[in-house]
């Protein structure tokens, strides 16, 4: 079972859990609906469509409303601390949550009691908290962009906003930033770095790169990192090895972006619609 933990940018959206469905660019869960857009909804949309194509059951989600004040995230953290220990989850994805080291650690302790322990994927705010807590190595996959990679590579920065300039200036030297992130113990077992060229790496070095097709406009489109995480999570949940799943996800995300003929004004929902064809293309199969 694939479970996605994240937030919805709707005030007073309650804490809801359950299996998600997708209808006309709207995600449905527990009687609530919200549009597929950037953030956790984009991740869920991509994961859901990928699971459908892969013949997997739809993902489950633990969601709460949070506009950045952190109250919803903390309610969700509390729920996770109480419930995760007895949950049976194969792949667990943490996404847009208010970074909070104390709550992160409580959740990670709950995960440590799970049997079997799920594959852990972290992105966005929860990845920031994982880095800040010093527990990054407990995760199986982080999916940072280059700016976030610089944050992971900076042993002192408490948030990407404080990443030091001499590190930020290394944007065209991703392999060095990856090595630096691992040297500071601030990286998961696998790093999938999204950018002009996507990199898959471990502490041993770069395992693979994906650089085709190239669509420069994708950098400007909010949610394209979220779709990458959703596709990767769906593939991992099929039992595919993490490294293979990550490489394929990078390829699928690029194909989907390419098929959308994007401009910097394209919205991510348009790209999500092309995931089925992109998955078929990457797998060498027909829809």
């Amino acid at each position, binding site marked *: 079972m694939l479970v996605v933990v994240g937030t919805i*940018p709707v005030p007073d959206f309650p804490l809801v859990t359950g299996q998600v469905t997708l209808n006309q660019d709207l995600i449905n869960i527990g009687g609530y609906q919200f549009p597929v857009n950037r953030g956790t909804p984009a991740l869920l949309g991509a994961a859901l469509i990928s699971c459908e194509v892969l013949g997997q059951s739809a993902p489950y989600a633990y969601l709460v409303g949070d506009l950045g004040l*952190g109250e919803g995230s903390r309610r969700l953290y509390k729920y996770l601390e109480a419930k995760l220990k007895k949950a049976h989850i194969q792949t667990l994805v943490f996404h847009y949550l208010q970074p909070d*080291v104390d709550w992160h650690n409580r959740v990670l302790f709950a995960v440590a009691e799970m049997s079997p322990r799920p594959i852990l994927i972290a992105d966005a705010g929860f990845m920031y908290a994982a880095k800040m807590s010093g527990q990054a190595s407990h995760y199986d996959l982080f999916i940072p962009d280059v700016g976030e990679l610089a944050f992971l590579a900076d042993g*002192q920065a408490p948030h990407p*906003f*404080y990443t030091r300039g001499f590190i930020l200036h290394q944007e065209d030297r991703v392999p060095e930033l990856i090595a630096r992130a691992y040297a500071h113990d601030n990286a998961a077992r696998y790093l999938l770095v999204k950018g002009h060229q996507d990199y898959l790496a471990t502490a041993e070095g770069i395992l693979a790169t994906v650089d085709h097709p190239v669509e420069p406009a994708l*950098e*400007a489109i909010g*949610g394209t990192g979220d779709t990458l995480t959703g596709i990767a999570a769906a593939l991992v949940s099929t039992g595919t090895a993490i490294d293979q799943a990550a490489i394929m996800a990078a390829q699928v995300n690029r194909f989907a972006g390419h098929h959308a003929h994007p401009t910097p004004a394209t919205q991510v929902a348009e790209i999500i619609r092309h995931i089925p064809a992109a998955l078929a293309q990457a797998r060498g199969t027909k829809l």
Partner: protein
Amino acid sequence: MTWLGIFKRQPRPRPDESQADLGILVFSHTSEVIRAEKLLKTAGWQVRVMGPPSEIQSGCDLVIEFPLIEELNLVRTLEAAQLSPLQIVPVSSPLMKPVKLFQVKDFGRYLMVRAANMKLTVDQESQVIVNVSGGGCPDVPYLAQEMVGKTLTTAPRPKEIGHTLCGYALQLAFEEIMRQCSW
């Protein structure tokens, strides 16, 4: 260590982890510290008054510790009460400064500015914000929802409706793109 060994590891806190996501507010006078503490506690923040770290060379001999991620929201609360900190720094590294570097990418019709982990893209002809990307705090999807589709002059400012450091970074990108587009 075997994979099984890694699998069974228990999370172990680093010695400084409890302070990793905290910041410090530095004020000129103790009276401001007292006012700020009362104001913030009344507003529901978990803050505490403490002595300044040795790296802090300015301000009085008391500082306020607060959740660093929520800097934008907290500063807005202070400013509404005419309280302006001299400095805001991370507890773990008091000498660190916020990112002041911008990356600008011209796509022709569209212009993108990146500040730290946040990117803002506008249509240079209409000055409509067409995309917000990057970031990981929960106010980012909300900011995007409220800003995309509006012009630079009619869109709400991230500093007005954002709450976190990602929102703060987006505000810097917004200011830079306003500067770039003010021809």
